[in-house]
């Protein structure tokens, strides 16, 4: 276990806690950039999906994990980003316009929808966002002049100038670069006053208000940023699968994003990435192992969903801090080797008290 004596405030909020951390991350990024050259298309596609879902999960993580506002309608923002990118690209707009536009439009929708809805707190907000997701889905089906309804939109591979993103690996690099930018953005937001305010709201709304934090302002900001990231993820998703229709953006997608951040570990940037990895790898692992399973199990189409639901339940029951929490525990175990205490990460239970007639 290392102890660092901090002498300045800046040392408390810098991006990398230790100098060695920076080099480890540098190695990771280099690895992610070089290794895929040797992989085949199947694995590159898995990696691309991980990057895309990680961007979306990060967006939801800022809202649910760091501001404490659980949205169950993120599929709506994902869909708005997706359709914006698809429509701009089919109209011949450049990629460098399409991706930011997708994010900004989703973010604006986040603000417009957020303003009335964010007066609500807790579960009421979650339900309102479900309503939002259903309404957006219905609009996508019915506004046929723009979205082509259930027929869906086919998107050609995008390009920046002469650089065309047609192959799997070029799309992977695009998604990866976007992911890195989004992670840096998120990390920087979180150490800025805005991020601090968001975390304060999560921990106690009353205390945050007492410290002079404007709840509507920062909740709306968090909602907008979250929708922005999710919209960008939607745009990348469009380019990756190159065909979108409203069926891709159901309530299940919102739940999947929530499951990602829970399985990954609520309240950490790592958690969003871990969750996305888990979410993408699980179905593929099932496909790969299907040949070895008994026939009765193999023929079940619901197997993947059942495992997915079971995973959510099991993680909340046995590892509420998610994969990242498990990683922290393992790390801590080795750092303090013979002295690890089992209850180091235990949370205090609280009783409910609601005053009402």
């Amino acid at each position: 276990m290392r102890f660092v004596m901090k002498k300045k405030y800046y040392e408390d909020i810098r991006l990398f806690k230790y100098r060695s951390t920076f080099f480890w991350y540098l190695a990771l990024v280099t690895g992610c950039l070089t290794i895929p050259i040797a992989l085949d298309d199947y694995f590159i596609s898995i990696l691309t999906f991980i990057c895309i879902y990680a961007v979306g999960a990060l967006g939801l993580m800022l809202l649910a994990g760091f501001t404490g506002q659980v949205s169950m309608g993120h599929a709506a923002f994902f869909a708005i980003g997706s359709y914006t990118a698809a429509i701009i690209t089919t109209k011949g707009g450049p990629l460098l316009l399409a991706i930011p536009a997708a994010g900004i439009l989703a973010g604006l929708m986040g603000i417009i929808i957020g303003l009335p809805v964010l007066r609500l707190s807790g579960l009421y907000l979650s339900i309102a966002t479900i309503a939002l997701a259903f309404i957006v889905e219905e609009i996508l089906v019915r506004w046929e002049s723009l979205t082509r309804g259930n027929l869906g939109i086919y998107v050609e591979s995008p390009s920046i100038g002469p650089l065309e993103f047609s192959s799997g690996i070029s799309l992977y690099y695009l998604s990866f670069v976007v992911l890195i930018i989004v992670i840096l953005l998120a990390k920087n937001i979180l150490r800025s006053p805005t991020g601090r305010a968001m975390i304060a709201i999560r921990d106690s709304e009353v205390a945050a208000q007492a410290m002079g934090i404007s709840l509507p302002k920062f909740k709306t900001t968090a909602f907008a940023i979250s929708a922005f990231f999710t919209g960008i993820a939607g745009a990348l998703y469009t380019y990756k699968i190159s065909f979108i229709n409203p069926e891709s953006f159901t309530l299940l997608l919102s739940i999947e994003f929530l499951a990602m951040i829970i399985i990954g570990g609520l309240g950490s940037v790592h958690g969003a990435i871990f969750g996305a990895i888990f979410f993408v790898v699980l179905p593929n692992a099932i496909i790969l192992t299907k040949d070895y399973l008994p026939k009765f199990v193999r023929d079940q189409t619901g197997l993947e969903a059942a495992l997915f639901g079971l995973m959510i339940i099991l993680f909340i029951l046995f590892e509420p801090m998610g994969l990242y929490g498990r990683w922290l525990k393992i790390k801590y175990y080795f750092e303090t080797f013979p002295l690890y205490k089992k209850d180091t990460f235990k949370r205090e239970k609280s009783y409910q008290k609601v005053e009402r007639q």
Partner: protein
Amino acid sequence: MNLLNEILQTILSGISVGCIYGLIALGFVMIFKATEVINFAQGELMMVGAFIAFSLISFFHLSYWTTLLLTTLIMALFGMIIERVVLRPLVGQPIFSLVMVTIGMMIFFKSVVSMIPFWGTDTYGFGTPFTEKLVRYNEIIVSWEHLSIIILTLLLILALFIFFRFTKMGVAMRATSQNQLAAVYMGISVNRVFSLTWVISAILGGFAGILLSPITFVHMNMGLIGLKAMPAAILGGFYSIPGAVVGGLIIGVTESLAGAYLPIGWKDVAAWIILILVLVIRPYGLFGTELKKKV
């Protein structure tokens, strides 16, 4: 006159669907009052109830009323098991985790039902004593299936009302929903209260499933109707038992009117638009009281 009859007819069928929403919303309210958790799996409980009733009638050839009784018992057991295995270890954890667990259950039950032999992904129906019987009043025709829903819902609500007002356990449940710690000090077994809450919700779900299946048939996606009951519960205030039923009726009637007189597509979103309006204008619902947060 003809138009009036048509509208009345639409409203009546809306009321019977609304009763189903009301029953599911009651399940939401029960669990929410006791544990502050929204049970997303309520619709799936209804689906499981419907499948159990279907199997009892089709495979074991039991009569409708025996099936109703047996399904109630099985659902009660099912609710108890869920509470004991999944929810009890999580008492005292953040609400969000609890809600997420119910979402996990929602996905899990649905896919498990699709895997069970003889249930699977097909659509089934079963005969009831009410099938193909009509009541005629002037020019309005009501099927007994719809009437049975309305009557049975009323009876259930009456039973619940009596339970909460006059029995000791009902009063204990109300006390627990107000203050868990104080309830413990008063000698109420909070665990038993939670268990009973889930039992009642599961029974309500099973009832809703049996009543609904003549109308929409039995299939694995029945649970989606459960989500539509959420606007009903919100409209009623989420704490109020009569509110849940009234909310269900309003949503049901609005939906069937929207389905009959508005362009296609409005029927599916009508409930959600109402929900957003209610939340913006009167977040504590028609029957709720505003809650002030205390530190």
